[in-house]
């Protein structure tokens, strides 16, 4: 029973973690919450759906179809996020802290309504490129092929992100900007380029999460991003917003909390969000900067 809950928690947490990374990467550099991130992941799933509709013959089942969905969802979401940054946030960056946040809320509402009005106000079936079957694990637990794909994709993307952030030129520039944006400029770093790259990467991870989330429900909808977006934002805060490892940790913790609440508490399935968020509030009362967050005073 517990093994099964761990499997379920991992699969759910992996999706939250991917989304949470998008919030935390942006916050790390700009100290800004990208409230449009949940719509970016929603549009990532619609872009994947659009590709599948455009080339239905190629979208039976199989790894190629799966890769196609990911590529479409990630590229579209990454490009959209960078586009939003360029036109809705960058012009306001020097003005005030609050203006980009309001702009982000505006973008979020516009994108949701655009899909609602122009695409569909209903759930739309999402392609299912992998044959659903249960794979037995030790201890009587089993993992569905979908959960396995979710976990594998999330782990690969996280490893890739780790490599980019730690080892590459752009990744080092991202970390330098997160430490001190002005000093990075003095080193010859064009902050606009680094910020655009950060939004692209964060958006692409969100796009992947949008595809995985839609696949697990078999459908997508104009407000698909809202709930996982809010939860992933919570996860990012729980782990310590601005901290990459914290976002992953927070995502998995939130996934486990929900699954365990649903599995072990009477009527838990209905109470899972209440329980998960109560734990979040308790953690923040004890550690206001999150589990792995630094004290705010350190970043003067």
């Amino acid at each position, binding site marked *: 029973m517990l093994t099964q809950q761990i499997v379920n928690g991992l699969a759910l947490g992996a999706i939250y973690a991917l989304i949470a990374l998008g919030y935390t990467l942006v916050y790390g550099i700009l100290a800004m919450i990208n409230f449009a991130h949940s719509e970016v992941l929603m549009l990532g799933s619609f872009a994947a759906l659009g590709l599948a509709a455009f080339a239905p013959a190629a979208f039976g089942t199989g790894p190629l179809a799966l890769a196609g969905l990911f590529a479409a969802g990630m590229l579209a979401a990454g490009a959209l996020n960078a586009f939003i940054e360029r036109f809705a946030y960058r012009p306001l960056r020097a003005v005030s802290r609050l203006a980009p946040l309001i702009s982000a809320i505006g973008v979020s509402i516009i994108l949701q309504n655009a899909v609602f009005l122009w695409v569909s106000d209903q759930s739309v079936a999402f392609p299912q490129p992998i044959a659903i079957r249960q794979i037995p694990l030790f201890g009587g637990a089993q993992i569905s092929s979908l959960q396995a794909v979710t976990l594998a994709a999330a782990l690969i993307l996280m490893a890739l992100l780790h490599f980019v952030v730690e080892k590459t*030129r752009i990744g*080092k*520039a991202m*970390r*330098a900007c*997160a*430490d*001190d944006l*002005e*000093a*990075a*400029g*003095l*080193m*010859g*770093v*064009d*902050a606009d380029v680094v910020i655009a790259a950060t939004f692209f990467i964060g958006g692409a991870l969100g796009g992947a999460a949008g595809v995985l989330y839609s696949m697990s429900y078999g459908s997508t909808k104009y407000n698909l991003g809202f709930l996982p977006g809010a939860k992933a934002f919570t996860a990012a805060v729980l782990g310590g917003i601005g901290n990459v490892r914290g976002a992953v940790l927070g995502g998995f913790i939130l996934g486990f909390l929900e699954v365990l609440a649903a599995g072990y508490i009477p009527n838990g399935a209905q109470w899972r969000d209440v329980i998960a968020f109560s734990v979040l509030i308790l953690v923040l009362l004890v550690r206001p900067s999150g589990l792995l967050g630094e004290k705010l005073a*350190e970043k003067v």
Partner: protein
Amino acid sequence: MSGGAMLSLDGVHAVYGRKIRALRGVSLEVRAGEVVALIGNNGAGKTTLMKTIAGLLAPEKGRVTFQGRALSGLPPHEVMRMGLSLVPEGRRIFPRLTVMENLEMGAYSRAHGAELAREYEHVFTLFPVLGRRRAQLGGTLSGGEQQMLAMGRALMAAPKLLMLDEPSMGLAPVVVDKIFEIIARINQEGVTVLLVEQNARRALKAAARAYVLETGEIVSAGDSASLLRDPAVQKAYLGL
């Protein structure tokens, strides 16, 4: 103004924050190969002046020219690529990057190659402690080591003009000696230096020429030896 000026400021006005007029018509020049000091009290506008030259602040009026090209209005990353590096006040190293990564950021604008490898060696020769601490996070270094890292990081770009804002701030006298020794050595190796200091005596000893900045205006200028003998300078900045 002589034709040999590497950096020249002509009637530069700048506003700091919303309203504070920090610079009121500053003109000065730095010739290739010189060490020039800028002294003045806290709040005189020294840091604003450095930030304006480096492109972190746009001048409200006036011209900043570096090697014959106008800098005014260029963003910091473009100013820097012209060969003008600022070691900012408070050092501003990257605390969560290792010493090595801090130096790599210093070389961000340059292509990899043999020349760059020699630059690392050069920095480690100037500051052996950085070589020993290369895997350590910048934030874990002592104040003196952080100042050395900030200077080493700026040198990685092989600047033609190195601007240092309060390099001695908060450091023990023995460390200050070391920092000024390095400044002299860097200058001998051909780097022009513009030095901002509250420690006027140290600055005037290190520099051949100096400017005195008071409430945003240059009130005095000349070679360091005569400024050291100037009664007004002695009274205001040397505590005599």
